């Protein structure tokens, strides 16, 4: 990763009302890269998926803290780290599989698939009983190059 230009950190509680707040806050910080409407929408969607995972899975039966770090790097790249101290993922490979869900019914099992297709890179580090860190990376081409 190249040189860090700017960074922000925030902590939110794992309440579903914070899904909207988190994605909008990250998008507001990402705005300094002058992203296109589509790029901004991609970032918001990926963040929404990751934060929802913390609420629905990591802290399923409790309220815990979600730590979000957003970094802007020299080569027009944004890196968003979303960390929880929840239950952890036993089988990360399985969790990444499209349509795999432990919840059924109203959950589509597409969270990680969406993150992967909307961002350039998605890494997951997880320890059972300790928590999970999802890192989302995307290079922003921005409006200037598209015009």
């Amino acid at each position, binding site marked *: 990763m190249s040189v860090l230009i700017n960074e922000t950190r925030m902590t939110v509680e794992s309440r579903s009302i914070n899904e*909207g707040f988190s994605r909008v806050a990250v998008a507001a910080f990402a705005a300094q890269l002058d992203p296109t*409407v589509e790029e901004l929408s991609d970032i918001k*969607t990926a963040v929404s998926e990751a934060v929802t995972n913390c609420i629905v899975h990591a802290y399923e039966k409790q309220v815990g803290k979600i730590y979000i770090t957003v970094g802007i790097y020299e080569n027009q790249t944004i890196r968003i780290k979303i960390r929880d101290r929840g239950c952890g993922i036993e089988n990360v490979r399985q969790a990444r599989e499209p349509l795999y869900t432990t919840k059924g019914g*109203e959950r589509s099992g*597409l*969270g990680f*698939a969406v993150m992967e297709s909307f961002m350039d890179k998605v890494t997951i580090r997880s320890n059972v009983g300790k928590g999970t860190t999802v890192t989302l990376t995307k290079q922003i081409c921005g409006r200037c190059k598209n015009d």
Partner: protein
Amino acid sequence: MPVSIRNSQDEVTAIIEGEIDHHTATEIRKCIDESVERIRPKLLKIDFSQVSFMDSSGIGLIMGRYNTMKIIGGKVEVQNPTPAIEKILKISGIQKLAKITKTQEVSK
């Protein structure tokens, strides 16, 4: 109300407004299911033209309604998705379960 419902004899059209995520989906689901249970339509049209944001919870919402409609012998149609929503619909492969139609030009 995040959903306005229009119904004719065998059809229910649910027009969703605002954002669809895990937080808002519960309320939206309740609104739609209430009408579906009361009217028991042959076709449930869900209109996305007024939706400003949707993550995979929206796909879960469509899948859930598909299952409900299947039980009562009906179908689901997805109407007027915006380009951002189309992108996520594509990943999900939901078009195998629900027809995607456009009745109007949707901006952005």
